[in-house]
């Protein structure tokens, strides 16, 4: 019950006019970037990071929470109306959502997705409120070897299990790790890979990396794709907004199932909500196949409800894992971790003791933000779709201006602008040749942690590597990791075989 009292205090902090304004601004910005294809909440937070320096941390984080969930609310709008998902987390709900829109049920699809996002978000936030402090207590049992195991788990899970090509995932991870070692070594004081340039002694700023990879990389890749066939039409949002009783009977269990699938994925570092949204979609499809009147393939409401709830449930528990363990399980969480560090805060078990007012205000802002987002999205979804009419070239020109402004404002160093351009080009190459961006971000965020904990553990044991696998926690983590890799390998060969037989059947 202590959690409830703390949460009450949090609500008192959030429900002031100025903090409510930050929630609203965050929610509006988040939905806007969510709606626009190719832009996600990770990039929005990265661009906002330098701009929010003059805010107090509570205001800034409340706004970031709005952006985070807003992105997940907005990304399905363009998916449903245009068949171009605003973000990779909306691909699963786009499949049936766009079919619903094509058959004149766009308004119901949008409502289903908004309510689904709300359900998943609220339920996972409740779970975070009650279990995050417990999780934080558990985390105090972690020593250097356990943290190293956790970081390695994140590295391998994100690059090998989640991405399509293990090789490309690991390549992105390696590129990230090599950037993460630049700067003065914190333990020995040796200057590493700086070529004697004093601006590099502090390492390459995380804002430079994220803005370069996510914003400038996207601008370059849009430029390179100019004139190719990816134009799409916006369908009008027709149909009554309110769901019929029959719709509700189909959607309500799917919302709950989606939430149940999404919740555990927030704590496992697999790089975000792509996996749970597809799992939820697959579950709904398989369940519907048993019914006679299944609508799958023609616009099934469950196909929108499940994935949408799963996506937001994952985002909610991912915030819990970030706050309690200091472990970023997705790209957005990784950037939020950087945001905490900018304010001199280190997420993890101690955060609940050191900055309880911030933590509980942030958790309370999830609930407020979710309600604001439901109001913003349920009736106004067609209005948001109008954003897609802003000419692309002006949109990306504006993003470039903000990207450069953000980078220069953090450091006032021209060298950072050069670095952000180079990272932007790397980001373009990665998009062009199918390398995932998430492993690189995780490598840059957790690389220094992995190295420090490795060296600490080895120093404690005086060079005996046995210490790395000496505790039950680290052994469990490594075993789960091996199981996950083997499981993913089996799953991949199986899908490959299925798709090959399907192709052969088509040919016959």
């Amino acid at each position, binding site marked *: 019950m202590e959690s409830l009292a703390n949460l009450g205090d949090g609500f008192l902090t959030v429900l002031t006019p100025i903090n409510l304004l930050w929630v609203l601004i965050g929610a509006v910005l988040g939905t806007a970037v969510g709606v626009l294809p190719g832009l996600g909440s990770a990039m929005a937070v990265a661009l906002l990071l*330098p*701009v929010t320096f*003059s805010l107090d941390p509570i205001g800034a984080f409340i706004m970031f929470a709005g952006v985070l969930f807003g992105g997940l609310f907005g990304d399905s709008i363009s998916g449903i109306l245009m068949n171009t998902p605003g973000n990779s987390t909306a691909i699963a709900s786009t499949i049936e959502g766009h079919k619903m829109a094509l058959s004149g049920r766009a308004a119901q699809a949008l409502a289903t997705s908004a309510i689904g996002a709300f359900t998943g978000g609220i339920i996972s936030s409740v779970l975070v409120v009650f279990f995050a402090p417990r999780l934080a207590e558990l985390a105090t049992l972690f020593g250097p070897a356990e943290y190293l195991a956790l970081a390695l788990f994140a590295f391998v899970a994100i690059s090998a299990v989640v991405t399509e090509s293990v*090789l*490309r995932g*690991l*390549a992105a991870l*390696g*590129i990230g*790790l*090599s950037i993460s*070692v630049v700067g003065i*070594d914190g*333990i*020995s004081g*040796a*200057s*590493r*890979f700086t070529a004697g340039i004093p601006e590099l002694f502090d390492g390459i700023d995380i804002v430079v990396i994220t803005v370069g990879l996510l914003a*400038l990389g996207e*601008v*370059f890749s*849009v*430029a*390179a*794709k*100019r*004139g*190719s*066939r990816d134009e799409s039409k916006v369908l009008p949002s027709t149909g009554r907004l309110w769901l019929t009783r029959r719709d509700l009977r189909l959607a309500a269990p799917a919302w709950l199932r989606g939430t149940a699938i999404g919740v555990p994925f927030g704590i496992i570092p697999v790089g975000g909500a792509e996996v749970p949204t597809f799992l939820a979609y697959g579950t709904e499809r398989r369940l519907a196949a048993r019914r006679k009147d299944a609508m799958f393939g023609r616009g099934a409401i469950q196909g929108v409800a499940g994935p949408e709830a799963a996506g937001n449930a994952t985002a909610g528990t991912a915030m819990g894992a970030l706050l309690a363990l200091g472990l970023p399980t997705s790209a957005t969480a990784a950037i939020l971790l950087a945001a905490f560090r900018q304010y001199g805060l280190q997420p993890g078990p101690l955060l609940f003791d050191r900055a309880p007012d911030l933590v509980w205000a942030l958790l309370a802002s999830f609930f407020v933000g979710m309600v604001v987002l439901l109001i913003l999205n349920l009736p106004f979804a067609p209005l948001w779709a109008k954003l897609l009419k802003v000419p*692309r*070239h*002006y949109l*990306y*020109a*504006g993003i*470039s*201006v903000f990207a*450069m*402004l953000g980078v*220069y*404002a953090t450091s*006032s160093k*021209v060298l950072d*602008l*050069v670095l952000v*351009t180079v990272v*932007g080009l*790397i980001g*373009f*190459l*990665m998009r*062009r*040749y199918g390398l995932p961006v998430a492993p690189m971000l995780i490598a840059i965020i957790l690389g220094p942690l*992995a*190295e420090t904990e*490795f*060296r600490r553990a*080895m*120093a404690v044991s005086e060079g005996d590597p046995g210490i790395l696998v000496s505790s039950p926690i680290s052994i469990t983590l490594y075993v789960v990791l091996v199981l996950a890799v083997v499981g993913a390998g089996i799953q991949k060969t199986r899908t490959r075989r299925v798709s090959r037989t399907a192709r052969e059947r088509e040919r016959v």
Partner: protein
Amino acid sequence: MSGVVRTISVTRRAVVTADGFWRRRTALVVPALMLLLAVGLVVGIVTMDVPANTAPPGPQVFPSIVAAGLFVLAALLAVDVVRRPEPAAVDIVESAEPGDLDDDPDGTTELRTTSNHRALLGALGTVVVFIAALTPLGWLLSGAVLFWGIARSLGSRRPVFDVFLSLAVSSIVQLAFSAGLGLNLPPGVLGGIL
């Protein structure tokens, strides 16, 4: 680049290009980049000044592991690219007389992505000019150049209107963030006037 807006019908067709080995394997840039990073790490590790009383494992161990990993992954990735090249057919957008038929209206042929190099170089060039001009010209002018250039490379057809739009965007940013939030933006040549 004439100012006249042309009304042309555009056809898209899947074209199989005859020359092929390198064109279908431009992805080799990625292993090349990884190789470069790995070599950079090795040079850095060899030339590093390590303080005398450093407890093992020292500052060179972790970068060595990363460098070794990069060498192996670059080699594996290069082999993968050579063995499984991108599709030979490319998506070509060309102006055509009305009446020409679209070869591939459904887009069913598996296509290789091609990059619009002129647009990409335009965007990159704009960013380089912006960085070079930032300190001497100041935020207001160089920010406007950035907006104008990116919009132009991404296909804006209204260069004159864009001049005013980009100056407006850049001034709003200057007002909101420099005057409003107190960020430090370089004034440049307009420093005395503003």
